[in-house]
Structures are given as C-alpha cells and as structure tokens.
C-alpha cells in the first residue's frame, strides 16, 4: 500500500484531530469544516482508512488510529512551532501567523522541525496559548479545555483561550468580558441546537453555537 501523505491528507488529519477534541467526529460535520461536499469527504475517508490512518464506525464516527494520531500531532506541532517562530523571531503579528503557518507546516523535514524547536527553546504553547504536541503533558493540557458548546446547563468553568481564526471576534468578546481567565457559567441552552445563555461577571450573553464552539473552557 502506498504511504504517501499528501498535503490534502495532512489537512484532513489535522481537522479530525482538532474536531475530536470537541467531541465525536461526524463525516457530515467534517465536510462542513473542510468546505467540501459529503461525497468528497467519504472518498477521502476511504483513502485514509486504506492507509491505516483513521477508523470509521457507524457508532463512534471518525477516529484517528495510533498512526494517524501521530501524523496529526506532528503536523499540529509544526504548525504551532511555526507560529511561535513567526511571532517571536520574525515579529509578525498575532492575527497574521495562523494563515502563514498553515502554508509552512507542510514543507518541513523532521530535522528542520527539531532545529526550529531548538532555536525557540522548546516552547510549550503556540502564541495563542494552545499546547504544542510533543512537549510535556501536551495531550492532557489539550484535553483539559473543552469548547464552551460542549458544556451543559449549570456547568461552570474558566475561559482558557479563544480560537485564533477570527481576531475581530476575539477582540469583541474581550470587550464584553469574555477573555482568558474569566469565569463563565452556562445558564440555558435554546432548543434545536440554539444559542447558549452564559453568565460572565454580572452580565448575561447569548452566544450562538458557532461562537461558543470557539471558546475553550477549563473546569473550575
């Protein structure tokens, strides 16, 4: 069986990796996230299964195999190392580095990865606060924080970080008091997968599911 991991494969692995932190991975949601049609995803999943990178079951959805997990972690590690490099060494701004790192992560040998980590002094986290796989306790740290959208009514937590893809949303939420280290409590969830009513400090906000899934929360 050919074992060529193309860039497309890598991007799927990365997406599955990130989604599996939020909950069970369903093919249809994967299609939404990758912005492709469901048949395209089915095709790709077949290919990934043949290569032994994922397992797909009706019950548990899409799962990374050990090998797949490793490949995904390598990729995420490279992405986050690049982000560090771009901010710390090249002095790029926070909100610019995610896109750049997406391009750089695919063209990298293990040797360069190693040297990059050396230069940076083996950091634990990317500039946005996400743990870098391969460092101590990274898996545990990554799993500790769950998206706000996974919480139930009555749950409480502390905001750990807000996903970096949308700097404006990040900034807007911060002005409302939804910034890292703020305590947050789920008061209510609207029917039909509707928005969540959350309480932060003295204020109550309705957050759509999309927004809530971008806010990572740690238990109290």
């Amino acid at each position, binding site marked *: 069986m050919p074992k060529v991991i193309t860039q497309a494969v890598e991007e799927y692995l990365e997406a599955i990796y990130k989604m599996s932190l939020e909950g069970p991975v369903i093919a249809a949601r994967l299609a939404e996230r990758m912005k492709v049609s469901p048949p395209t995803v089915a095709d790709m999943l077949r290919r990934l299964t043949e290569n032994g990178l994922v397992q797909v079951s009706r019950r548990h959805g899409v799962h990374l195999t050990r090998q797949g997990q490793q490949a995904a972690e390598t990729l995420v590690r490279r992405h986050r190392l690049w982000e560090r490099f771009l*901010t*710390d060494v090249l*002095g790029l*701004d*926070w*909100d610019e580095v995610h896109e750049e790192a997406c391009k750089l992560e695919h063209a990298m040998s293990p040797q360069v990865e190693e040297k990059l980590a050396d230069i940076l002094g083996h950091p634990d*986290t990317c*500039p*946005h*606060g996400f743990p870098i796989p391969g460092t101590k306790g990274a898996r545990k740290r990554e799993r500790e924080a769950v998206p706000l959208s996974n919480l139930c009514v009555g749950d409480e937590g502390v905001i750990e*970080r807000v996903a970096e893809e949308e*700097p*404006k*949303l*990040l*900034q*807007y*939420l*911060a*002005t*409302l*008091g939804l*910034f*890292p*280290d*703020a305590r947050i409590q789920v008061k*209510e969830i*609207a*029917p*039909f*997968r*509707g*928005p969540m*009513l959350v309480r932060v*400090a*003295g*204020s*109550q*906000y*309705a*957050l*759509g*599911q*999309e*927004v809530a899934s971008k806010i990572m929360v740690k238990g109290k």
Partner: protein
Amino acid sequence: MKPEFKIVPVSCHKTFNKLREDTDVTIALAGNPNVGKSSIFNSLTGMGVETANYPGTSVDVHVATTALNGTRIGIFDLPGTYALGAVSEDQWVARTGVLEGNPDVVVIVLDATNLARNLYLALQFMELGYPVVVALNVYDVAKREGRDIDVKKLSRLLDAPVVPTVANRGEGLKELIAAAVRAAGSGRRPEPPDTRFGQDVERRVQELTAAIAAAGLKDPHDLPYRAMALLLLENDQEYIGLTKAMPGWEPILELAAGLRRQIEAEHGQPASIRIAGERHGLAGIIASEVETAETDRQISWGERLWRYTTGPVTGVPVLLGVLGIIFVLMYFAGNGLADLLSNAWEGYVLPPVQSGLFAVIGKNAVSQSLMWIPDGFEAALTVGVPFVLVFYFVLAFLEDSGYLNSVAFLTDAVMHRFGLHGRAMIPIVAGAGCNVPAIMGTRVLTTLRERVIAGTLIVMVPCSARTAVIFGAVAFYAGWEAALGLYAIVLALWVLAGLGLNRIMPGKSTGLVMEMFSFRRPHFKTVVKKTWFRFKGFVLMAAPILIIGSLALGALYASGYLFDLVRPLSPVMEDWMGLPAVAGLALVMGILRKELTLQMLVLLAIGMGASKGVEHNLNLIMTNSQLFVFALVTAIYIPCAATITALGKELGWSRTALISGFTIGLAVLVGGLANQMFRLFG
C-alpha cells in the same frame, strides 16, 4: 430647558462643526446599549433632533440642542456600545464620533445594576482625556435589587462627578446637565485620572507613553500620550495608519511592536486582549470597592418570564401566540384606523379639494392629474399611517419589555439556515403588516450581508395590502383553500430564497453574540416616544415619494399614455401568464401601492358594465384561475414605491434595483408556471 426643532440629516462632520458654532457647551452622551441612554437624550432634548450618519454605516449619531439658565447646550448621542474601538461598526462610530465631535464633556450613562461591565467604557473615555460626568442610571432598580452604591466614593475613585438618575421618570437629569456644564468649564484634562493596570502591562504602557512624549508626536485630535500608547499597543490598525502621518513615527511604532510582543509572550494572548482584560480588572476593582450587594436575591418575575419564553416546551407556543397577536393587531387595529382615516379624508377633505380644483382650472387632464396628489395623500393615510403606527407601537412595546431578546434567543437556530440570526425574526414578521417599517427595522442586524438577505426576505413577505388583494381576488372568488394554496406557494418560495441567498451571497453569517436582559415593565412614555420618533422618520421618507409617484402616474393615466406604456407587456402578460392585457395596467399601478391592483381591476370591471359596488363582477374580466395567477404575481413582484425607497435608503440603490429585478423575474416565472399548470390540469 427649551427644545428646538429642526431636521437636517447630514454628514457627521458638518453637523458637529455647526453644533459647536451654535452652542456654548457641547456634550457627548455615551453608554452601553440598553442602559436608558436614549431616554436621557429624549428627556433632555424633547423632539427636535437631527440625525447624522457616517457614509457606509447604519449607525446614526443623533444631535440636538437644549438650554439651561441661558447656556446653549448641544448634545450628541453616540451609539450605544460596550467599548470604543474598530472591531464593530457601532464601536467605530462611537470612537470616531467623539473624536470628531470633540465635546467639552462626555456624559457616560452607567447601568447601576451592572456597574463593573459598564465601567469599562467609562475608563476608555477617561483614557482619551475627556472630562467625564457619570450618570448612574436605573438607580432605583439597583436599590430594589439590594445593591448599595457609594456614590461619593465612586466619584472620588473616578475623579469625576457622579449623578444618580432614573431616566424614565426624569429624576436627576437637571442635576446631571448642571454637573456636565460645570465639568465642561474645566476644559480637557492634560493627564487622565490615575488608572493603573497590572504591573507588567503598566510598565510597558508607561515606557511607550514616555517615548511618545519624548519624540513629541502630535495627535490630530489632541489625544493624551497615554491614550496614543494604548491604541498602538492594542495594535489598532486605523490608529497605526494615523500615526504614520506624524513626524518621527518610525521608532515609536517599532518600540510599540516590540512591547506588544513582550506582553504577548508573557501572557500567551494578544496584547489587545490583555489590555481589555486589564481594563475589565480595573473596572471590577472599582465596582467592588463602591458596591455592597445583598446576595440572597429571589428569582424575579422577569427571570421567570424569561424562562417561560425561551423554554423548549413553552417558548415556541408563546412566540406563535405573540406573532398571532401582532398579526391580529396589525390587521384589525390597522384596518380600523385605515377605515377611520380614509372615511374622514373622503368625507371632509377630498370633496372640497376636488370641487375647488375643478372650479379653478376646469375638469380636464391637468386637474385630473393634480387630483392624484390628494389621492396619494389618501394612500399614505390608509396604507402607511395606520399600519406603520400600529406596528411601531407594538415593536416599541416588545423592545421595551425585553421580549425581543427571548425571540432572538429562541429563533437563532432556525434563522441561521438563512444566514441570519435571531434578531432578524421581528422585522421579518413585521413585514406581514407593512414592509417599510420592517426594512427600517433591519438596522438591528450587524453586517451588510445580513441586511441584504433580511431585506430581500422581507420584500417577499406579503404585507397587509397584498393580503387584501389575495383575499379580495382569490379567497372571495375561488375560496379560502385557493388562498391557502397561494400562501403555501409564497412560503415555499420564501424558504427557497432564504436558503439560496445564504448560499450565493459572499461571506458568511456572523454568530450571535448579544447581551441578554431580563424582562422589564414597559414604560408607556418611552414606548410612545419611540413610536413617534420612528414614525416621524417614516413619514418624512415615504410621503414625498408617494406624492411625486402619484402625480407622475396620475399624469400618465389621465393623458392616456399609460395604455401605450403597458402595451409592450402583452406578450408576457397574455401568452406566458394568460392574463388579459388590462391586468398589466393594474400591475403597473400596483407599484405605487399594492392594493391598487385590485382597485384597478374593480374599476375596469365597472367600466365593462358591472354594476357598481358589487365586487362579484371581477369574473367579467378574469376567470378564477386567472385571478389566482394575478394575485400570485401581485404578492411577489416588485415592492411598492415606499418599500423601494426604504430599501434604497438602507441598502443602496443598486442593491435595491437587484432585489426589485429579482422579485419581478420570480413573479413572472412563477405566474407563468402557475398558468401553464392550470392549462394542463384545468
């Protein structure tokens, strides 16, 4: 206090300049959304308000004047925001507005029941170096909730006057304005008050502040050095652009970037977020210093109502009930008012005008064209005024009670499919009464994409005039089942249009982020004022269009040119949709007001020998299936003149043309298909 009256909608810049020239003291009014800022503004200024607007934004700045003991005071009301910044339209307008308006003093309205979050904005204004006066609003509610706020201490900590107010009862407003005038005399303060962040951030802010001072950078708005430093550390792109016009900027921006990175490296979050966090921290400390709250609070009726209106079992029935009530109110109260007004108009105004006109210039084409002007007035009286008035009242009532929050929360998931969010639900429902206020109501939506989708969908909601046509032409002749079928078709098209628009419109929908308030007892005076305020805006916009349109159409009709104009329509009308050519005439008239289509048909039927007053005779010119097609087309095709005007104002004329073209195309397509179906299946 003596309010003056004038209405000149112009750009902000000119308005501000004029305001400063005309008055002795200018005050900016600022605050979070929904803290009672508009009540304060309205009470201070009465009804005489100008509205200014930055091009390309939907957020208005209201400007008005008042006087106190001979001092002429100009007030501008900034949009309600949680912060000043560049991340959202309202924040940008608030910041640009205060910088350009350069008021002598900023009055910040704080919600006494949520002091910590509200203080954030106050701190930002103080950073900018404006003298600040704090209005501690809904002081009574805070007291009732068991919050005790030490006003003197708050005033000392902020180094600014603090006046407790109860805006909707007018309490404390005189003291507030007096304090503002006094503070205005103090001039702009060179150093902002002693607000200090956490040490590691503070150190860097001070380093940059000192560097800016040493480099002698001069801000065009005279911002204090610390404010400049904060904006640069927050990586505010607009301000960085502005800085590049100041001599000696290069080392400063470099230093700012370096310090920003240091903060980011230390805290693992962008410097702007960290600074926001610091401000929240500071606000929280100040709030906890001055506030002692009783914690054992009972669940209020407001919270209980919230639970009922958003719960999965009770929420949907409540919503349907409320929508039903709106519909019934619009239908009965609106129609009742319409009858009353049109009877009065036709009984007491029209006859003398008509006989006078005919007496002066004789009964000819000119006088008959001119008669369309009073007819246009009647259109405004019978379509615009009653329905719009009733709807605005209902809307203001629901807004003031807080129910709109529940609706947004409940319907968000469904509206998401159309690329909208829950806040769009109310204007869309309102469209069933009259499209015009509904379209003006889309301002609550934040992005242009959402406003375009909502605007298109509203136009496709049959308003009360179109409902009248559907009832009069279809239900009356072919029975209610046919009318129901017609509604089903319109609903299906509506859903398809929503789904389709969400697909083809570039960009994606924003998620819902909205502050939620509990229910409040609506305040009657506020509701009436709000209703009047919006209603005035509607009349000013729609009346000229109706009058000019009436005159033009009247001239075309009276001179007979209209028949020549609709003749080219006959292939579409007759061959494709199977309608008689005269129906085309009726449809063209319907652009002015939709129920004219039916009235024209009746007129034509009378012209063909039907006895007057008996509507049964529409069958003289059309069969039942033709009437169905006709009503269907009427329900969908081009919005009426007033709606087009509203669309143009809110979305721009090219988008309005697109939407109108789309609805005409859709109407012709669907009308033709319906006709072909009738032909095939009888």
